[in-house]
């Protein structure tokens, strides 16, 4: 049984829970979603999802409950991890568009710009192609979304979109870490979650 730990402090937790179940069914793999709220919930976890929410709130809560360092430890140990939106922000080593300091995981060699596209009014949907996925384009739902503005060491872009003629990177991968600017958990398209489960199976 593959246990997918969803960091359940704030944000779109139930949506990922639903997608993990759906993805497991689709690829006929024994996988179950588990909520992670305290450090002992991280025991025997095979994959991690850092969901969307407010990155400031999640960071502050994870620091307060002592979860932040523990998650960082097991991600750096090589546990496959998916971060969506605020999750991607928390995973980045460099962060733009913030006020003062905010607690972060800092595990991925990327620079992320918070609220890159603007405010909620500028939130949008678009279809995009992701390098490591087969099949039709993936529906990206971007909500006050961040974007990846720099990559170094092993990190690289796996998808980009064109906004006003400018190429913007929206998926980053590095070893067994995946980070997306958008919310695959809102679409019903389980391919990214399937990919995470398969990584955990290896």
């Amino acid at each position, binding site marked *: 049984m593959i246990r997918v730990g969803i960091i359940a402090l704030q944000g779109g937790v139930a949506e990922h829970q639903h997608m993990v179940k*759906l993805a497991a069914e689709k690829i006929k793999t024994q996988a179950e979603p588990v909520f992670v709220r305290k450090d002992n919930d991280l025991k025997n976890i095979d994959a991690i999802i850092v969901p969307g*929410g407010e990155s400031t*709130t999640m960071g502050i809560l994870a620091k307060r409950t002592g979860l932040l360092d523990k998650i960082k430890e097991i991600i750096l140990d090589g546990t496959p991890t998916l971060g969506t939106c605020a999750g991607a922000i928390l995973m980045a080593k460099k962060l733009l568009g913030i006020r*003062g300091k905010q607690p972060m995981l800092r595990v991925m060699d990327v620079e992320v710009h918070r609220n890159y596209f603007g405010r909620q009014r500028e939130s949008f*949907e678009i279809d995009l192609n992701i390098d490591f996925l087969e099949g039709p384009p993936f529906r990206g739902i971007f909500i006050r979304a961040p974007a990846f503005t720099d990559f170094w060491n092993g990190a690289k872009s796996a998808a980009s*979109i064109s906004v006003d003629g400018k190429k913007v990177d929206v998926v980053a991968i590095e070893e067994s870490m995946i980070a997306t600017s958008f919310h695959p958990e*809102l*679409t019903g398209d389980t391919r990214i979650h399937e990919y995470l489960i398969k990584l955990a199976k290896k």
Partner: protein
Amino acid sequence: MIKPSSYHSGLVDVGFNEIVEFFYRLAEATDKLKEEGLFSYQTSPLPERITIPTRGTISVKLGFPVYQKGGVVMDVTNVEQAEIAEDAGAVAVMVLDKLPYDVRRSGGVARMADIKIIEEVMETITIPVMAKVRIGHYMEAKILEQIGVDMIDESEVLTPVDEKHHINKWMFNIPFINGARELGEALRRITEGAAMIRTKGEAGTGNVAEAVRHMKIIMKDIKLLGRMSEEERLRKAREYGVPYQLVDLTAKLGRLPIVNFAAGGIATPADAALMMWLGADGIFVGSGIFKSQDPPERATAIVLATSMWNDPEYIAEAQRMISEQKSMMGIDIKQLKPEELLQTRGV
């Protein structure tokens, strides 16, 4: 661990995308709604392939509140308070001219907040900024959309301009929140295009009793729907004045199809945890923080208690962070005259 209250439903596992598809189908199918002028701005389904960024879609509007879940939205009246809220871990701030407690005290007409202050808050902090408009006031809402506020609360705390109609929220590209005291009210607001519901409670009292009552009524109404025959649901839909399909969906989900927060009188971490235990997806705190004597500590404590509501160790820790002597004094609702109640505005 504290078990969820019996008001929590045994959730049916339904994807967000299925809810969004429901609203597109409903918009397409229901001629009656078109006659009433509702849904008329969102009837066109999205193309099979979206090649350019498309804004204001149903997914984008219903999606925004999903990422507020488990969080606390704090009422603020200036930049300093907004900074305290962000530093404490609020998921958003709600900018008002006066806190609900002061609205009660001052009387007169309560309108939307000063644009300059809203803009100053938007420029200073990085979390979402919401603001309130008067019930039925399309132009206050248009102005807030124009300046780029992230979400609009069509709120009974301000003085309504239309006793009979709420705003048709499908006309806007940004999401709306509405208050509700019972299921019919909530479903009417969803039919009008609200992306998020909150209990009305009795704002500005520091007394959570009405929020508890409203949350329990909504949860109980939904449970009752679940046990009804098709025929009875049809009658309920007519009684509520909403499409049958929406009543049916709510019954099947065992909860509101959109995010549902608690608001009105929440003043302590224990109040926030209580509302989460009753099944709220998150919390609005109005006067409770900045009418107390310990705003930064209290804000931090309420954020912690909201997230960790089912863990006795953490809610005790949160409650320890505040002092009851510093809580807002509060108003006994029984002392209020019927005309002083805010919750009866706009049903």
